[in-house]
């Protein structure tokens, strides 16, 4: 599989997270300056140079669980808190949205345009902060440098790697159901009409050639779809018309976004196995997390800035209800990092990972006295 997939996965999921948080902050009437601070803090942490360096190293993708831990950390990079149920819902929404975008990308290379759409919108959130803007532009430059020259085949491999990451995820999202882009069984609608990808011809033509390469016959056939030619190619430059709408912000201010988390489907069988069986990669994943989060520079809160809790549901009761009724096989085991010898470090880690109440989540066991814990000490 492709070792260049993680930056695209991370940035797009991060973009969706910011769209959703922005919408919830407004829906919950959080004062403008607080909301801006939260988004600024998260974005500046996400695009921190050290963190981006780790992210862009060629590496394989890790599990959905491992990645969720990074986003949980990111979401708490500021004065905002999320309960488990809200963090679960946030991650569900993020992953389903990007899965949808990857599936519907006309060309595999268009996933880069989706990434640019996310980054373009993120730049809108931090319009007034030139330093953070610079960080994002730097990442855009890195993306064009690394991905600009990849072949169609390498993008197809990246696409396949992403689809394998999202395999068997069928959470129903009310906004997708309402817009009829998702069916009731959780599958996305794949339209058979509209523009073909840039570089593809409209199906329906057969051309036959002689030995000299001259066309000697052409016939048309009915292919069953209703396609039209592609209007124009999206821009892969730092600035430009991306043409593609996938990856732009689909959350409007007052639209509550529900997720239906359905359990008991036999399609979840394989995913269940992945999350319940002891994970031999646990140590590798923890190493990965340590590396990645080691690059995250979280600013300590200066002064008595009061924190607040964001709720992804409409009421607190709904949030509690969601926590109680989440199907077993869809629970994300929270990776809890044990306290280390260093008092200050352990306090900081405890603050990072466990400030809010984690109720009955089972701990991912790591053997004591591991090199890993020693590594965490060095963060």
């Amino acid at each position, binding site marked *: 599989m492709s070792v260049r997939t993680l930056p695209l996965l991370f940035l797009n999921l991060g973009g969706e997270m910011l769209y959703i948080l922005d919408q919830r902050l407004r829906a919950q009437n959080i004062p403008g300056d607080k909301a801006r601070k939260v988004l600024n803090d998260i974005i500046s942490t996400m695009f921190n140079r050290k963190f981006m360096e780790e992210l862009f190293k060629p590496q394989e993708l890790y599990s959905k669980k491992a990645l969720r831990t990074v986003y949980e950390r990111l979401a708490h990079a500021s004065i905002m808190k999320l309960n488990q149920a809200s963090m679960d819902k946030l991650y569900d929404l993020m992953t389903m949205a990007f899965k949808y975008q990857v599936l519907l990308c006309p060309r595999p290379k268009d996933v880069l345009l989706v990434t640019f759409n996310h980054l373009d919108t993120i730049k809108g959130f931090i319009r007034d902060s030139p330093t953070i803007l610079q960080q994002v532009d730097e990442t855009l430059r890195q993306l064009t440098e690394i991905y600009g020259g990849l072949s169609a085949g390498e993008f197809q491999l990246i696409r396949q790697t992403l689809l394998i990451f999202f395999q068997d995820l069928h959470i129903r999202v009310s906004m997708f159901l309402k817009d009829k882009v998702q069916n009731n069984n959780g599958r996305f609608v794949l339209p058979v009409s509209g523009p073909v990808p840039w570089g593809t011809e409209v*199906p329906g033509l057969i051309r036959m050639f002689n030995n000299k390469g001259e066309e000697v016959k052409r016939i048309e056939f009915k292919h069953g779809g209703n396609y039209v030619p592609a209007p124009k190619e999206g821009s892969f430059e730092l600035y430009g018309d991306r043409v593609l709408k996938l990856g732009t912000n689909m959350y409007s201010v007052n639209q509550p976004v529900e997720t239906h988390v359905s359990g008991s489907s036999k399609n979840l069988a394989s995913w269940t196995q992945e999350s319940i069986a002891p994970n031999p990669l646990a140590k590798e994943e923890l190493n990965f997390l340590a590396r990645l989060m080691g690059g995250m520079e979280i600013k300590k809160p200066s002064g008595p800035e009061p924190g607040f809790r964001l709720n992804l549901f409409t009421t607190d009761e709904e949030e509690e209800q969601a926590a109680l009724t989440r199907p077993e096989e869809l629970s994300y085991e929270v990776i809890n990092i044990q306290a280390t010898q260093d008092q200050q470090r352990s306090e900081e880690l405890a603050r990072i990972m466990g400030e809010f109440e984690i109720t009955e989540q089972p701990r991912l066991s790591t053997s004591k006295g591991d090199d890993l814990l020693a590594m965490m000490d060095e963060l």
Partner: protein
Amino acid sequence: MFRWERSIPLRGSAAALCNNLSVLQLPARNLTYFGVVHGPSAQLLSAAPEGVPLAQRQLHAKEGAGVSPPLITQVHWCVLPFRVLLVLTSHRGIQMYESNGYTMVYWHALDSGDASPGTWSGRVLVFDIPAKGPNIVLSEELAGHQMPITDIATEPAQGQLWQGIIAAGYGNGQVHLYEATTGNLHVQINAHARAICALDLASEVGKLLSAGEDTFVHIWKLSRNPESGYIEVEHCHGECVADTQLCGARFCDSSGNSFAVTGYDLAEIRRFSSV
């Protein structure tokens, strides 16, 4: 016209790979074998004529070097003149088994930078296979293709290529037909609106099956112009498998009267037969 037959359930959904369905017909035993890649495992199952599933088992890719369990990229029954081998490829290497998947006879490790034979890097590996036993030897590597190819179908190697025609499916949805002797392109079909994931040939009748990520399956009839001898083709049938990004398709009999498809996230093999 084709109608949708009884589907065969899979233990896990099919992965979004190219050519993710292999079919081996065993008419003497009234059985058909199907092979589908799920991710780190490949599912092999046998079915009776009406699609009634009989037995299922899973094969895993050998570990080799690296931190994560290797993902299988393709499973395929290679029908050679004197034996049938089941080939499993992953990014770590190539494994070959006897056709029922019970005995591994060969394992070739790939260097970490390599892709599967015949895919993204354009390299093709050629093996010498003896009539019996595990003495399989890598004989050469062809670095012919510069561009990525998604699938190539030739007739199963009992005999010759079908009337000397090579069919190739591309990432831009086109099917090309080449004259094997000259390498000339003779037919270009704008067949699909997305990448083609699988091609198959029904050798008895010269029918070609193409399946794309655009949810469509198309069946084509290959022929030669009686005067010029040039390759010609006509469209026979198109089938839409709604909302399913196809990843594998095969004829289930050599006369092209039935075919099966697999799709990303689909936990069954969909079968169609002509009416």
